[in-house]
């Protein structure tokens, strides 16, 4: 036990002496959370648009003013002919062109009907969707106001309450995801690389012939990262709570326990990767490209898993972060207790045990 403790101490010193790695370990999470918090935003302001007004009357002028004063749009230019539309899109100058048909006001007055064409740059479908929504809303509101002057009209008003996130902050969505990614990164990647490093540089053999038990060697390598990851969890939660105003509605201890569980899971995944890879390069590329992208994209971090095609939806079941993100959202934002997240928790425990069992098997074969 004493030997084991001194070994852990050595491993700690190893990491702490390396200032660069330390800065990175603590810098990434903080920078990432700050970027997500301050920079990533799903609503659009000041989208550049062009207007092709073939009518140039009072009504089209009023609609144009409404659009431009809404804060969502910025007028890049007035077009003169429809030939210019294609080119202005191609040059990437605008996201939307609004076309008022000829004799717009006259038709609206005489026939009660007039057309507006919205031409959207759908190479970015999400932006196109959102812009179309904004534009239509403004135009419909304007027309409704015209119609409201008529006494016989019936109006259904709709109101909305943004449950759990009244401020409509994107951070709510991103904090749990970022936490999952960071923990996977630091725990799984770091451990797999440190262990493979010893293998590649040949120092693992030296350790293996020492009186330390192989399990102790692995544990000794892993413990510092457990501690570092834990510090990261605390700092991310702190930032989320104090800087971005995320609530922690549920039980803080339950939340921390779940984080620890996920750290264990990532560490065992890291050990598993190290047992299958011979060189650091291999371990890194497996973790980086094989692990990062799927756990970013198939976990519900950015894209909701419910929207995915069925196959991917089921593949996402195998992604540990998917369950962790679910748990964190439930506990922090919805205030759920263990009775609501026990299923996810069991899945994570099961996965951890699976990874450990697999690494032990691989490890034995190799020795």
């Amino acid at each position, binding site marked *: 036990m004493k030997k084991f403790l001194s070994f852990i101490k050595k491993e700690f010193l190893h990491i702490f002496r390396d200032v660069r790695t330390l800065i990175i370990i603590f810098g990434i999470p903080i920078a990432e959370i700050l970027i997500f918090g301050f920079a990533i935003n799903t609503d659009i*302001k000041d989208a550049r648009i062009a207007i092709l007004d073939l009518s140039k009357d009072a009504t089209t002028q009023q609609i144009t003013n409404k659009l431009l004063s809404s804060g969502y749009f910025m007028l890049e230019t007035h077009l003169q002919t429809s030939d210019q539309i294609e080119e202005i899109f191609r040059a990437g100058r605008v996201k939307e062109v609004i076309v008022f048909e000829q004799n717009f006001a006259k038709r609206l007055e005489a026939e009660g009907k007039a057309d*507006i064409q919205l031409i959207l740059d759908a190479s*970015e479908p*999400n932006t196109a969707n959102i812009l179309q929504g904004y534009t239509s809303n403004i135009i419909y509101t304007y027309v409704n106001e015209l119609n409201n002057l008529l006494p016989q009209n019936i109006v259904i008003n709709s*109101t909305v*309450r943004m449950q759990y*996130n009244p401020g409509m902050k994107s951070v709510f969505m991103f904090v749990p995801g970022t936490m999952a990614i960071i923990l996977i990164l630091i725990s799984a990647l770091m451990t797999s*690389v440190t262990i493979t490093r010893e293998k590649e540089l040949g120092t693992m053999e030296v350790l293996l012939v020492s009186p330390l038990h192989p399990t102790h060697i692995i544990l000794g390598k892993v413990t510092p990262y457990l501690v570092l990851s834990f510090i990261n969890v605390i700092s991310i939660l702190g930032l989320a709570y104090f800087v971005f105003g995320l609530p922690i509605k549920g039980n803080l201890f339950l939340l921390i326990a779940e984080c620890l569980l996920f750290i264990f899971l990532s560490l065992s995944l890291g050990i598993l990767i190290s047992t299958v890879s011979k060189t650091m390069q291999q371990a890194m590329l497996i973790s980086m490209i094989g692990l990062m992208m799927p756990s970013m994209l198939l976990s519900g971090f950015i894209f909701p898993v419910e929207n995915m095609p069925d196959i991917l939806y089921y593949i996402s079941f195998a992604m540990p972060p998917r369950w962790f993100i679910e748990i964190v959202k439930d506990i922090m934002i919805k205030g759920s207790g263990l009775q609501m997240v026990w299923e996810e928790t069991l899945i994570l425990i099961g996965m951890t045990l699976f990874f450990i069992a697999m690494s032990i098997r691989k490890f034995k074969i190799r020795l």
Partner: protein
Amino acid sequence: MKTLIFLIRKEFRQIKRNKVLLPIIFIMPILQLLILVHATTFQIRNVNIGVVDNDKSTTSLNLINTLGASEFFSITAFPAHISEAESMLAKSQIDMIMVIPQNFGSNLVREKQADIQFIPNAINVNFATLAYSYATMVLRSFNIRIITETTPTIMPVQHKVVNIIPRYYFNSEMNYKWYMFPGIMVILITMIGLFLSGLNLVREKEIGTSEQLNVTPIKKHHFILAKLIPFLIIGLLELTLATVLGILVYNVPFEGNFLVLVGFTFIYLFVVLGIGLLISTMANTQQQMMFVAFFVVIIFILLSGIFTPAESMPNWVQKLNVINPIAYFMKVIRMVMLKGSGINNLIHELISMTIYAIIVLSLATFRYRKTS
């Protein structure tokens, strides 16, 4: 020049012998392009709605049916009370609550107005906003229907209608895959280039072979170029492979000129590989290199506007994106592929990338120390 060929040949031999590297370079990206592109959609397939109907009139039933008939919504529950509905929302059994107030139907007749409340789960703001805006669209058409039903057609022209006709340029089906495919391609090409070039150099440092090279009269720029060119070629191969895949599997239109894209990628790869080498000249171990590289890449990716439009980011981010190569590439690849933009549309980006490449490569060469 001759020396350079010898050095490049050595790099290729090493890559060829590395049994793990090749699959990682070529098979992994293909798999990811095949799988992940399907995952990256903001499109809403289905919103489960729980309706709290406090009215239970024909009108409210009508509204519920209209909503349930639209393609995005399915009415999955009728909780009796709002509290019950909220607990269903908490358990993620439903995505949105619709509350119909008491006397909804009669209010519409008597007071000519009534209220409907929607309560979406707004943890994912994007989802909540879209779901709500779809719901209001359904509500609006329901509203118009009621008006035409209850108002006799004596005054046909009184009610004014503006038809909004949307047209989706470059992607008329609003196919998300066309949008995400180039995005994922950018990430893969960037990650592979940056990590491979960077790890390669640090690896030589770590196992000691670079010391042997440093004691030879090898020129610094030869060394840097030899580390760069193989991965440049791999990057371009990767680009071609991915493009073919996109066209075959996802029917991504390739409106522009492929050579324009190759030309831009060529310059772009100099920048990315240069950044990888620059980082590796400053790192002592592969681990360090990888973490710095990861740090840089993740920030570049998130700010580049791959998942969320760059336009929706604050000003300081847009300014920061001036030094974000991924932002340029992301923009250019979508422009060339989907919009058919040509060189004349990309002059600004081309010049910026060229300057960037010169700066990064000079720095990497300068920072590479043969003598400590």
